[in-house]
């Protein structure tokens, strides 16, 4: 039978260490919404989302109440819209209409964000995919909660440098069009390499074409819990440290597993995966940076940061994987600068640089995330940053991503404020040396030699 100390420990995690379930995300296939005209497609999409997800938010709230665990976000992911709209969209404006339909449907059911205004162009772009990408400045500035992602490369296909080059211009344009709001539009867009099909987190979540009609995926959180647990590991060796992280990750993930199974059962939708990422928030004590500092760094960004993060990421996976039957998505430690108090401080003090963050992305679960850069950064430089990250993912057979915000009208040292969980960030300096001749060559970077495993 349960004892009082175990019950106390769980409630302490929830009340004082900010343990929560970060998101319940319902994936919905929109492949059957394709039709001859844009208006028909929009109607089909609106109807399907508002039917399938009508009980998502109330069900999430009921689970929160029954188990006493906060579920911070309820979200929806859909099939990449470049596929759904390919049959009917003849222009970028047509795609924007679909973005509005997604925005309306998501607001109707009351979710926080909807992801999947996406294109998978890891080898090359179809005309529809290019139109969707070109629609992003309008789509992201005119809608509120639609998120977008573009997969520009993979270990199997190489990197589509035409798409990478185009995205540099697109990200600049999105930033300009949302200049009044610290270029918030860029917060809703992420470029990927090796993107997973079942990611419940935003902005990169979409419902992959390998998925069924609908699915429930859950993203857990809990850097605060790991951080508190590490107080007991102060001065101890790596074996003790790793064991502590593993045990904690196990407990966190079990809560996610419970919530996922319960949500799937109540909604009558199959359970997909648990994403066992450590996802920080700007709140004090809910920081991956703090965890790294407790491992022994004076400040995140110091020499040793990459090794500490590699170890943390690995232990989180080892602990979490035993706690759930199906682990997927991104699963690891996130390092979004603007969403992590200790990373914000380290970036502001100059201890944490973009170059160090790039090194960290070789061993963390995603990539350069929520980094504010000067508004006058060139499109070519942004493309170069995306190409570098994609290359890290491609060669290391891992997911990498870029979500940078070239904050219009602001420069190094100023702050950008994105609000809420998206946080705030000091604008970080970017290497100014040119790379235009590299990113504008055209074509694609071939797949690496070790991808040929057949």
């Amino acid at each position, binding site marked *: 039978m349960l004892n*009082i100390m175990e019950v106390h420990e769980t409630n302490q995690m929830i009340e004082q260490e900010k343990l929560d379930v970060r998101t319940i995300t319902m994936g919905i296939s929109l492949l059957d919404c394709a039709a001859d005209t844009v208006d028909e497609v929009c109607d089909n999409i609106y109807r399907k989302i508002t039917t399938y997800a009508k009980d998502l938010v109330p069900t999430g709230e009921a689970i929160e109440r029954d188990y006493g665990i906060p579920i911070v976000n309820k979200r929806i992911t859909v099939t990449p819209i470049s596929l759904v709209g390919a049959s009917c969209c003849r222009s970028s404006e047509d795609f924007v209409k679909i973005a509005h339909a997604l925005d309306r449907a998501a607001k109707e059911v009351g979710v926080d964000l909807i992801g999947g205004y996406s294109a998978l162009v890891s080898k090359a772009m179809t005309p529809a995919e290019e139109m969707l990408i070109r629609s992003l400045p309008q789509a992201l500035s005119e809608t509120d909660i639609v998120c977008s992602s573009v997969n520009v490369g993979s270990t199997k296909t190489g990197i589509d440098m035409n798409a990478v080059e185009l995205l540099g211009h697109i990200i600049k344009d999105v930033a300009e069009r949302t200049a009044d709001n610290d270029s918030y539009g860029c917060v809703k867009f992420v470029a990927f390499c090796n993107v997973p099909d079942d990611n419940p987190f935003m902005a990169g979540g979409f419902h992959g074409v390998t998925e069924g009609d609908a699915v429930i995926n859950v993203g857990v959180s809990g850097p605060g819990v790991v951080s508190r647990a590490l107080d007991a590991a102060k001065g101890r060796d790596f074996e003790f440290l790793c064991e502590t992280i593993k045990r904690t990750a196990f407990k966190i993930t079990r809560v996610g597993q419970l919530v996922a199974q319960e949500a799937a059962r109540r909604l009558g939708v199959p359970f997909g995966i648990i994403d066992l990422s450590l996802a920080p928030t700007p709140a004090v004590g809910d920081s991956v940076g703090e965890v790294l500092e407790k491992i022994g760094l004076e400040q995140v960004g110091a020499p040793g940061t990459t090794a500490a993060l590699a170890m943390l990421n690995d232990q989180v996976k080892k602990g979490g994987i035993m706690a759930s039957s199906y682990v997927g998505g991104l699963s690891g430690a996130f390092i979004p600068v603007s969403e992590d108090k200790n990373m914000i401080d380290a970036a502001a003090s100059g201890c944490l640089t973009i170059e160090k963050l790039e090194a960290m992305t070789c061993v963390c679960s995603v990539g350069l995330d929520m980094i504010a850069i000067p508004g006058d950064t060139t499109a070519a430089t942004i493309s170069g940053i995306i190409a570098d990250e994609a290359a890290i993912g491609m060669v290391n057979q891992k997911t990498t991503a870029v979500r940078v915000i070239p904050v219009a009208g602001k420069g190094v040292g100023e702050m950008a404020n994105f609000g809420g969980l998206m946080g705030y960030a000091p604008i970080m300096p970017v290497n100014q040396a040119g790379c235009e001749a590299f990113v504008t060559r055209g074509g694609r970077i071939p797949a690496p030699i070790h991808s040929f495993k057949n």
Partner: protein
Amino acid sequence: MNKAIITVVGHDTVGIIARVCTYLAERHVNVLDISQTIIDGFFNMMMIVDVTDASEEFGTIVEDLDKLGEEIGVRIRCQREEIFTKMHRI
């Protein structure tokens, strides 16, 4: 059996258990086990209860106990048992 865990945390005062138990009895919630201890100077009480035959919706019981706690000046939580068993039992 449909079990829930009720926890009370706060300063110890006369009649806390009596008031919680009275509320539960009136709603046909059966108390299976009670334990209490002092953690970090705070009174901690835990009840394991059976809500299978409860005459109220579980959500209502959660809200009512929360309000009762506010009246008494302690924190009362009522949670389904699985969140604890999943976390602490393999």
